[in-house]
């Protein structure tokens, strides 16, 4: 793990963030004065209708977009604001944040093991060690027999598991997932969500999942409901309820 955190310590916090985009001559407000903290060992689900600002939040928290106003804090230190050049935070992103998307977004010309290995080599891990670690990760996700297959030879669920292995390659403290189960059937989707649950419980990763799917509410610790760029409700998820025996 790159950085160690005690359970429930805040890893990343978006404070009073707003985001506006220009669409032609019109200004579109995607996020309005949003504050949300992501904690280590916590699996947060962000739900809400399309256009409610879920993905925008994810991009700001993942340092892919700067907020128009407000700040992003890492371990209580401001790390990004409206004037931050996010290209300069690429190193930070590489070592601290993992991303998973609806589409696996694997590099088509690399095999499964190479797709994971590249993330490690980019982080200056030597090729031999990177390959060994990539194999280890794929084995954890039951893909050891598929490591030399190209993405086109893998099923949707297998591709998504490779992308999770890649996201975890550099032991991120925070994992951001945007509709990771949208392209999967029910059982494969649940497998993926259970992986996230394990990551939060065992590896103390702060996991934030944007989803439309109401089936996973029992897996989340916390469900954040968004609408029109604002947080409208924060409620405990099934996992939290079970823990608290609500």
């Amino acid at each position, binding site marked *: 793990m790159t950085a160690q955190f005690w359970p429930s310590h805040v890893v990343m916090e978006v404070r009073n963030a707003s985001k506006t985009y220009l669409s032609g001559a019109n200004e579109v407000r995607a996020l309005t004065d949003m504050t949300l903290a992501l904690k280590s060992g916590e699996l947060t689900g962000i739900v809400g209708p399309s256009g409610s600002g879920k993905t925008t939040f994810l*991009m700001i928290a993942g340092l*892919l977009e700067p907020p128009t106003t407000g700040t992003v804090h890492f371990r209580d230190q401001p790390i990004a604001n409206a004037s931050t050049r996010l290209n300069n935070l690429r190193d930070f*992103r590489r070592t601290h944040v993992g991303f998973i998307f609806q589409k696996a977004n694997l*590099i*088509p*010309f690399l095999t499964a093991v190479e797709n994971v290995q*590249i*993330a490690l080599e980019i982080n200056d891990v030597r090729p031999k060690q*990177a390959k060994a670690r990539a194999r280890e990760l794929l084995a954890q996700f039951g893909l050891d027999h598929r490591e030399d297959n*190209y993405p086109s030879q893998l099923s949707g669920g297998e591709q998504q598991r490779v992308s999770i292995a890649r996201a975890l390659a550099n032991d991120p403290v925070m994992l951001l997932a945007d509709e990771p189960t949208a392209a999967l059937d029910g059982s494969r989707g649940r497998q993926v969500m259970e992986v996230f649950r394990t990551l939060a419980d065992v590896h103390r990763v702060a996991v934030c999942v944007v989803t439309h799917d109401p089936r996973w509410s029992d897996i989340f610790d916390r469900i954040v409901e968004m609408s029109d760029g604002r947080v409208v409700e924060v409620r405990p998820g099934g996992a939290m309820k079970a823990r608290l025996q609500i």
Partner: protein
Amino acid sequence: MNIALKDMRFSMLRFALTAVGIGLLLGATMGMIGLYRGIVHEALLIINDVGADLWVVEGGRSGPFAETSAVPSSLDRRVEGVPGVAATRRFIQYNQQYNIGGKSVRLAVTGIDYPKDSGSWIPLIDGRLFRSTRYEAIADQSTGLLVGDVIRLGHDDYTVVGLTKGQVDMGGDGMFFVTIADSQAINRVLPSEAILLNRVAKGRSRMGLGDGGALAAVMVELKPNADPQLVKAQIKAWGDVEVLTKEEERSMLLDGRLWRLRVQILAFTAMTLLVAGSIIALTIYMLTLEKINQIALLKLIGARDRVIIGLIVQQALWIAALGFSVALFISFTIYPNFPRTVLLVPEDLAGIAGALLLISLGASWFAIRRAMQVRAQEVLA
């Protein structure tokens, strides 16, 4: 991990076809440049190889290559007496079409002043040089003749005793070297009616032109310390002849007779280079555009710019190198079978390689600029 090579390995057929396409374009460019060089080489072949310092030709003319020339067959003896002249050789060259073995063959019949000139400057690939003053010939292989062949030209049979390669005149006709006496004899063969008409017109003919006894030029070799300009002035002072130095002969051909052809080929070469350069640049740029999503993903997972730049530049250079190899292969396997000489000189090949390198790096620069504009979040697009 070298992701540039991984991509190429994955899409091997596509990259191979791209390289072949670029190779064919470059091959065409090499061919155009080679054709230009070949035409110049062929035109200057005799002037460069025969070892003459001065050419004495018909007065007021720029012969014997850029214009026709006819001088008396005894002119060499007059020239020999000029101070500074070490040796003279008579020279004849004319083109004729002959029927050899049922096939029509064009020959550039070239008279050699044997035994003064043994023909040692002729590069043989088979057979031998002249041993007799009559009825022997050295033929270029482009004529289709072989050592030992006996062909009838005019009233006599000629035995091919030697074979050359690439000895053609500026029109591309294969050279057929015979002795001066034989070249005059072959040229003298005319239908009987023509002989009669010639006799009538003899008084009007220039220095015996038409009776087959004239020479095209006299080649002069100077003594080591002789001043070419002085010797030239002395001979020219006779008034009936023109004297041209080796350099003037070259210039007459290249800047006179071949000028339009050279400019035409050079213009085509420039066009081919421009087209090849544009297509190579576009290909490399398109390769990058196709990978925009992967470049965004690499940025998303934190790849440094040098990883992305390396991917683009390496692929551009690999394609350029493979294309150049294909072009070389084509040039060295196909062009030697072309009817005219396609001369590939190392300087030109190095120049093409350099231009290709610049084009590849230039195209990479545009592609890199585009790649640097890609934002990581475009993965989500």
